[in-house]
């Protein structure tokens, strides 16, 4: 706001960053859109095929399965919201050493999904810790092949995502809780609320802005899940494609099967889903702020 004279200065400041974003974000969107109408294996030039890729997707059973898996994966969002709200309420108290606990809960977040995924794989292995524990407790009689069981692939990956997200979303909710005035809790106590009712009537409504953010961030992350599936299934997508999500299928088509045109069509579908999601979320956000 310093002056109004037309000068090149702002554009020069913006140029380097905009050049990078234009090359690696904006251009790729256009390119993917074009590739989605072509047969393309990356090594030879793309050949125009019109809507063939999209038509093929409509009848592609694995693609529909992948869509179903990706939507199922969205269940992590409500689970994370509930668990992390409770976790934030638990750590939002003044106790000696509370910061150390918060930090410990944050460790899975920064450790990276590869290291975490391999750790989990070691524990869930047929000869892993979990079977050892269950056997010694007498819960099971013979080891369960957790990672080879198709119906377990997606739930285990989701569990891993939830476990890695706990600390992250907890911190976001904690920041929200610390903005809620203490008087509201006092007023609730005077009105005869027990501790649980107090949180239900004060903390939960007070965290509305955080619910929107966490809802958006965690559901976009769920739609884009890849690393967990990759590690748990050794890059194969699980027996009978039991762990194949939209992004995993995109990756397999583009970089394993050299079908970049088809992968681009999947990418466009993913983009549309993401856009619809974002619009719904923004609407919710607007409604949320109006209500405030």
């Amino acid at each position, binding site marked *: *706001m*310093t002056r109004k004279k*037309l000068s090149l200065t*702002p*554009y020069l*400041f*913006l140029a*380097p*960053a*905009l050049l*990078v*974003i234009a*090359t*690696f974000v*904006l251009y*790729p*969107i256009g*390119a*993917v859109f074009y*590739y989605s109408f072509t047969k393309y294996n*990356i090594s030879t030039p793309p050949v125009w095929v019109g809507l063939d890729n999209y038509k093929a997707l409509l009848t592609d059973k694995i693609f529909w399965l992948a869509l179903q898996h990706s939507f199922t994966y969205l269940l992590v969002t409500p689970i994370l919201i509930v668990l992390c709200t409770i976790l934030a309420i638990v750590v939002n*108290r003044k*106790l000696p050493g509370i910061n150390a606990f*918060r930090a410990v809960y*944050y*460790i*899975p977040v920064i*450790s*990276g999904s*590869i*290291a975490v995924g*391999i*750790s*989990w794989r*070691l*524990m869930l*292995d047929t000869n892993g*810790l979990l079977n*050892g524990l269950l056997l*010694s407790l007498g819960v099971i009689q013979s080891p369960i092949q957790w990672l080879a069981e198709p119906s377990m692939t997606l739930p285990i990956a989701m569990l891993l995502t939830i476990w890695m997200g706990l600390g*992250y979303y907890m*911190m*976001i909710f904690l*920041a*929200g809780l610390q903005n809620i005035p203490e008087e509201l809790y006092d007023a609730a106590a005077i009105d005869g609320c027990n501790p649980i009712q107090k949180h239900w009537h004060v903390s939960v409504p007070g965290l509305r*802005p955080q619910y929107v*953010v966490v809802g958006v961030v965690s559901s*976009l992350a769920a739609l*884009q899940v*890849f*690393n967990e599936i990759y590690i748990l299934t050794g890059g194969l997508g699980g027996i009978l494609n039991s762990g194949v999500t939209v992004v995993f299928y995109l*990756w397999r088509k*583009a970089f394993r099967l050299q079908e*970049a045109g088809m*992968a681009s069509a999947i*990418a*466009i579908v993913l*983009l549309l889903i993401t*856009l619809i999601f*974002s619009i719904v979320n923004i609407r919710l956000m607007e409604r949320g702020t109006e209500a405030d």
Partner: protein
Amino acid sequence: MELAQSTPNRMSPLRSLSWRKTRETIFWYFVLILIALFTVFPFVWVFFTSFKGPADAIVSVPPQLIPKDPTFDNYIRVWNQLPIPAFFMNSVIVSLSTVVLNLLFCSLAAYPLGKMKFKGRDLIFYLLLATFVIPPQLTSIPSYVLAVNVFKYYDSILALIFPNLATVFNIFLLRQAFKTVPNDLIEAGKMDGASDLRVWWSILLPVIRPSLATAAIFTFVNQWNDFFWPSLMLHTRTHMTLQVGLVAMQGMMTSDARGMAAGVTMTIIPIIIFFVLLQRHFVRGLGGAVKG
């Protein structure tokens, strides 16, 4: 405090109150420790497993945590089979150079977006905002083509640095920081005859240092843990980052749980140390990210 000064005959309700408080405190510590066990247990188990010798079972009934025959052999074996120092060097070079260059580019771009009025500002702002919803995997197909055909940095760590030279998230974070700087500060600098570049470097950047620190830490951790794009680009062992190398190790040592545990431990410890040292900035960054 008032209760503490009450008369002796009111001691018994006081004592029961303080006993209730103690009991409550013990309860919360119990809950906190239980959650802590849940969040770090896989790491603890992997850590101990990495020191297990051939005589120590990975899993037994009942499970054994502490090795009876501790050894560094697993670390030596992993170290001899894989270029671990190269993985580390590559990860450090990629993460550090991305942080420095990204903050440079993003803080340059954020200054006019936050503090100047110019034609097209809103257009650029909303264009950048819209890219938030673009799934990174969508851009990977054209970025791959660019890497192979145009920039020729396929299989080199340059491929990890270039696309991350500017990120929309950091531009927004820093723009938010610039907006909070009083205009008088800029005017005063201009009065002294400083150019915009000089104002940006000597006046604004020192003021927004906390936000720069936050952006730096998040960029560093993201780059350190990134897997999808690096796994597409890096194929020669000595060019790999830790995450890609870790997956290569997983492929090589499928039946060597002790070795894998050693590999995971080696990659996690540096990032945990980094986190513990800079913990405060993480918390502030998360709170800020939500408000911004």
